[in-house]
């Protein structure tokens, strides 16, 4: 049996070894927030966080991340309350068709965890693995800046 730690919950799975993390998340566990698009590591729609680093679940074998902490878009919100990054994406109109959004949001989280106040260049660099076919990049960059403010305020309130 393979044990995967996803969104701080442990899942026991019977895996043969050739399953990608993307397939396991969507097909075995029903966590369909992680999207399948190009399937060849070009678009970033399948991005998840493994030990707080953004990676592409379509080219990771699920067995290779046994023992790591995996985070998907489902792990961000607390019940009905959205995560500040999700809220910032909505507030800034950064979500159009929404297909690329889970990936963008997780990469934003990885960025802001390491660098709470990134400049535009740093934002662009850390989102370079994502494609938005609606072309909403400028709104997305605005959303990341807003999310950075929201999170910093959130931290100071605490």
């Amino acid at each position, binding site marked *: 049996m393979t044990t995967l730690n996803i969104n701080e919950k442990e899942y026991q799975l019977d895996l*043969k*070894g*050739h399953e990608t993390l993307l*397939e396991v998340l969507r097909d075995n566990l029903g966590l369909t927030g992680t999207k399948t698009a190009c399937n060849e*590591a070009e678009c*970033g729609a399948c991005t998840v966080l493994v030990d707080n*680093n953004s990676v592409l679940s379509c080219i990771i074998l699920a067995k*290779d991340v046994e023992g790591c902490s995996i985070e998907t878009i489902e792990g961000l919100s607390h019940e009905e309350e959205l995560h500040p990054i999700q809220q910032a994406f909505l507030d800034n109109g950064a979500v159009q068709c929404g297909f690329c959004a889970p990936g963008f949001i997780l990469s934003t989280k990885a960025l802001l965890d390491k660098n709470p106040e990134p400049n535009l260049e740093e934002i662009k660099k850390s989102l370079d693995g994502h494609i938005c076919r609606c072309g909403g990049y400028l709104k997305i960059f605005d959303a990341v800046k807003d999310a950075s403010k929201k999170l910093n305020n959130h931290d100071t309130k605490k």
Partner: protein
Amino acid sequence: MLLNPFNYHSPKTLKEACNLLDTLKNARILSGGTFLVNNLKSLKRRGLKTPDDIISLQKIPEIKGIQIKSDKIMIGAMTTLNNIAQDKNVEKHYPILRIVSENIASTQIRNMATIGGNVACRYAWTEFASCLIALEATLHFAEKKKLKEISAESFFKNNAKPEGLLTSISIPIKKDIIAIYKRVSKTPGVDLPMLTVCIKVSLKKNTLLDVRVVINDGASFSKRDVSIEKALEGSNLDENIEGKFLSNLNPETYKLDNEYKKELLRIHSKYAIQKLLVQINDNA
């Protein structure tokens, strides 16, 4: 199902991995997976045979990480590109390694891809090749009963026959080294390089020594340009270094199939040598 079934092996130690590799001769080695897993998908799509055994190196801690050992910087083969880009020792001794890493693919790929995979796949355009040859790196391999070393320069040759498992890459730490890297790709975003130029010199009393100039034309392995190296070796900074460099550059010796690419090499070599001279000035 994205991949055809295979036997998945996940050794915990280097020894175990070498033994597995010895018994399973046709197994493919999985490091970061960014080349291999895509390659497996493509084989499946085209209805070609896929490997029966995959040996994943993800769970072997001894070949991960960066260490300083006496006068060498040792980079474990399973160190990811972003780990290299963010390492303090790399930044202190060879910031050029950070520059090379940061130019490769996208953030997610750099979080997964390893320097070992990048080197051991031996694609002609492999980004690290030029820089590792210029920095006089040594590649360390392990087999079931022996350890082997080969210089990066001889590894990236058509007649090299690499065997065993790449475990680490060592680069000698020397003082007064200045190295620059110039990369050209078709688009400014995530793209493969068409051309890379790497120049390394060690500067002593305003004289250029140990000059290495390595050029990759995107179609064949990175190689040293010996005629430029000879021309620059021992030159004083008062001389016309840029002129010497450019008059000895011969685009005909590279696999550049049209005038546009030859001109590209001339222009970017010029940028590269100018960048080197600026950096020498800045350091002074």
